[in-house]
């Protein structure tokens, strides 16, 4: 294994640059170092002005998502040694399809607004007082939505989704998967409220099933699955609303 590795990091300063440009850095190559370690090395030892988001460095917080050699990755889980034998430097860029604020930091308000619009919390028609009892759930009921609850909002799925890139009004993979997480929760009664947002063109019907969101998800959430499954639910509900008498819906 070589002693150093070359990184090409996209830099953008809104004060001075009209557009971003790559800057090269030589970083020690250690077996246990991930791309995030290399970025922290640069910030500590080489260039303190390099700006990026990170927090937990263990795949939980979802802050350090970036493009590594063109692929959306959690930089805390992407080992430098994977690229040690590449002739080209490792290219680190901000998450694709999001506006860049500075260097590797992107603006995510769009996602936050969309996430809120699908009401990702438990909705009850009537809230029981806690003194009465807790909301019980069997392991099977938990199993139905658990996969979707693993989402850490890292936005790698948005950076992998060409639909979101081409048509930014698309509500996007993670927001829909999180809506499904609550729709499939036996304690939730808000599926009907969420449907108004989800069953629009900007919702599930915007998805053309490229499937890359699921491929890049570091937590194996399968947003593509969530969307396709919801397409079926929405279609059934629509037919029901046509065919069934008012009281039976």
């Amino acid at each position, binding site marked *: 294994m070589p002693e150093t590795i070359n990184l090409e990091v996209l830099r953008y300063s809104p004060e001075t640059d009209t557009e971003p440009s790559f800057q090269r850095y030589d970083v020690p190559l250690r077996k246990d170092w991930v791309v995030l370690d290399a970025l922290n090395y640069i910030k500590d030892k080489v260039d303190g002005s390099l700006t990026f988001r990170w927090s937990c460095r263990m795949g939980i917080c979802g802050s350090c998502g970036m493009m590594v050699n063109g692929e959306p990755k959690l930089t805390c889980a992407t080992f430098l040694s994977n690229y040690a034998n590449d002739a080209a430097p490792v290219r680190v860029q901000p998450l694709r399809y999001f506006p*860049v604020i500075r260097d590797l930091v992107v603006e995510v308000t769009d996602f936050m*607004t969309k996430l809120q619009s699908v009401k990702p919390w438990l909705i009850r028609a009537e809230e029981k007082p806690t003194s009465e009892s807790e909301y019980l759930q069997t392991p099977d009921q938990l199993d*139905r939505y658990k996969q979707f609850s693993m989402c850490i909002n890292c936005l790698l799925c948005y950076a992998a989704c060409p639909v979101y890139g081409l048509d*930014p009004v698309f509500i996007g993979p993670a927001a829909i998967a999180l809506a499904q997480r609550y729709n499939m929760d036996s304690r939730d009664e808000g599926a009907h409220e969420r449907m108004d947002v989800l069953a629009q063109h900007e919702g599930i019907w915007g998805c053309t099933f490229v499937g890359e969101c699921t491929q890049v998800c570091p937590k194996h959430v399968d947003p593509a699955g969530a969307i396709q499954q919801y397409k079926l639910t929405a279609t059934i509900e629509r037919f029901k609303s046509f065919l069934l008498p008012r009281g039976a819906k």
Partner: protein
Amino acid sequence: MTEARQTVGYTEYHPRWYRSRVSTWWWLTRWPYLKFILREISSVFVASFVVLLLLQIRALSRGPEAYARFQHWLQNPLVLLLNLVTLFFVVFHAITWFKLAPSAMAVRFRGKRVPDLFIVGTNYAAWAVVSLVVAWFLVRP
């Protein structure tokens, strides 16, 4: 630009976000994207096959002579090539589509999710059976 982005209150503190444009050739950058576009394009060839079939039915309704003429036209190398390409795309579409079926079908049996391989397998098997039945109707003496 979405409405949400236009109305966020603190945009003045980020006066110069950098937005890159999505290249027209984005689908050439990764094999899964290209595969997706090929699957979408397959619809054009499926449509062309439907048009051929409708023309064939029209020729059939106009009597044996018209049908013989149409069959002769079908032997044109260009039409053969079109049909060959269509066959490729239809098979490609079917294979990739059935492979995606498990993510759209979350079938549960006795509380457990049916394994993906089982769903893909049954879809492929059903496809093969239907194809064989159709082939039997077409080639039987």
